[in-house]
């Protein structure tokens, strides 16, 4: 096991230093090896620490979707989410030397994006408070741009539209929640992280995570009831 790890690391380093291979090809090469590692990101993190920015591309491609979804669900804005993810990745790259491997790299990374999203929310909230809302602008205009994975080819168009409408309503309910409730619902119910991971990301004790989740669920339930009617 240890030998394989060393060989794997050597090969990856060799490929990375060669400089001619694309990050995509590297990604495929690496993916065949992922099964060997508890944290499949660790070797790329090590390469990044060794001053190899190309290794970071693998990490970006691997985690960008989840990062983007966390940011999007927390802010409810597609463009903001893209910005947040960029900033979060840049911060992560800058601070990658401080990552000590106590938790999984992904957990550390998602913690960064949650932080950035939280900061953005604080910023936009204060901005929204001070700036007058224009009545000419469609508040849902931005949401038309988000490509949603079709549920199935067989799903009737009407069902898709209904589903899309419901999803937008749910997102609006999330947006209306308190910041603390919003992030815990996104991490637990939408992204499905474990309590342990959430407590690491948010820097909160387990008990607080549980009680906060309980209150957040109660709050979103009441909000959804108003929008979607009786939830049965």
């Amino acid at each position: 096991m240890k030998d394989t790890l060393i060989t794997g690391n050597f090969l990856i380093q060799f490929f990375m230093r060669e400089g001619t291979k694309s990050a995509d090809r590297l990604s495929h090469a690496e993916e065949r090896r992922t099964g060997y590692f508890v944290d499949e990101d660790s070797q790329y993190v090590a390469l990044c620490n060794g001053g190899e920015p190309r290794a970071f591309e693998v990490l970006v491609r691997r985690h960008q979707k989840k990062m983007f979804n966390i940011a999007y669900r927390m802010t409810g804005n597609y463009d903001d989410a893209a910005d947040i993810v960029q900033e979060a990745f840049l911060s992560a790259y800058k601070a990658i030397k401080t990552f000590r491997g106590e938790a999984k790299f992904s957990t550390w990374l998602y913690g960064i994006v949650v932080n950035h999203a939280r900061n953005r929310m604080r910023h936009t909230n204060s901005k929204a408070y001070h700036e007058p809302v224009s009545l000419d602008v469609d508040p849902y205009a931005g949401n038309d741009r988000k490509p949603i994975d079709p549920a199935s080819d067989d799903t009737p168009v009407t069902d898709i539209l209904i589903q899309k409408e419901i999803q937008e309503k749910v997102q609006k309910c999330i947006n209306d929640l308190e910041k603390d409730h919003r992030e815990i619902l996104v991490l637990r119910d939408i992204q499905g992280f474990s309590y342990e991971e959430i407590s690491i990301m948010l820097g909160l004790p387990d008990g607080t995570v549980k009680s906060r989740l309980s209150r957040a669920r109660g709050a979103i339930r009441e909000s959804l009831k108003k929008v979607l009617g009786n939830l049965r």
Partner: protein
Amino acid sequence: MRCSEIEDKLTTYLENFLQKEERAMIKKHCAECDNCRHSLESLQKTKDILKGLDEIEPPPWLAETIMARIYAKEEKKSWFQRFFLPLRVKVPIQALAMIFVAVLSVYIYKSTAPDMERLDRPQHLPQVSEPGKTVEKTQTSQEKDIGPEPKYKEKKASAPVEKGPEGPAQEIGESPVPGRQDGVPAIEPGNAGMAPVPSEEGMAFDHTQKKGSAIPAAMPPSPAKVERYKVREPEVREEVKSSGYPMAATGVSQEVPGRITAASTDPEDAARKARRIMMSLSAEEIRERTENTSVIISCSIDPQFIPELKNKIAEVALVDESRTRIVTGLDTPQVIEIVIVKRPDSP
């Protein structure tokens, strides 16, 4: 268990974190209580709705943009790093550079300092020796006109005679000065110089004769000689005060038989003029040095010009007769010192 308590535990129930007994109790309660059952169902539904939200695809350019920004930063950083190395590298380099600079500066200081000292003397030497040479030339031409060279050599040979410690007959204070002025043309042939040579000079004569012939007139004085002048200066002054004829009294002062002391408000300016006068009188080995506020100029001059020198100096500065001593009746070049002291108030 009350409904409110059940309500609090519904989330934990849905998360499967409860003990078996509690789970069974809640299950039993919800089967009986409609409110709690509805609450549980709505919570489950809420959870399902949230879980069922679609994953959003990030913009296709996201990864590229991120990487482009990282590469740009990396490039900037590497450029930046060339100038600002990490501290672990920078600090030792800076320390070494500091030591190098310190050592270099000490070395440069040490190596240039002697040069500076050396530069001090040549400042006078070229000034003096160059005109000296020209003076020498003119002098020799004059001599050719006036008389034959061998005579001059004779003068040279007999010169030390008067310098002898026991030769007071030749030294005259104030009174002989005008007499000597009159006798200037008479001295020229050398007979006047030869006549007063006392026969009892003996040993001193031989000794000084050798010395006189060994040192040519044009030869620049050795540093030791200059040093001797300096050392002798204060004692000479004291003797001037006491006896008026210090050179004769001391056995060492054979080489400075004459001295003209003059006072001027601007000793430096007076010294400049005195030098010019000396040069005009074909003086050689003109040396100038400063002691406190007074300027001392020494030169080797033909004795026939000494009275003229004194007169000309008197035009430039106020000659102190009590501290002036001139030897007459010699016919070899004499070393004479002109001491120009600073006069506090203008006349």
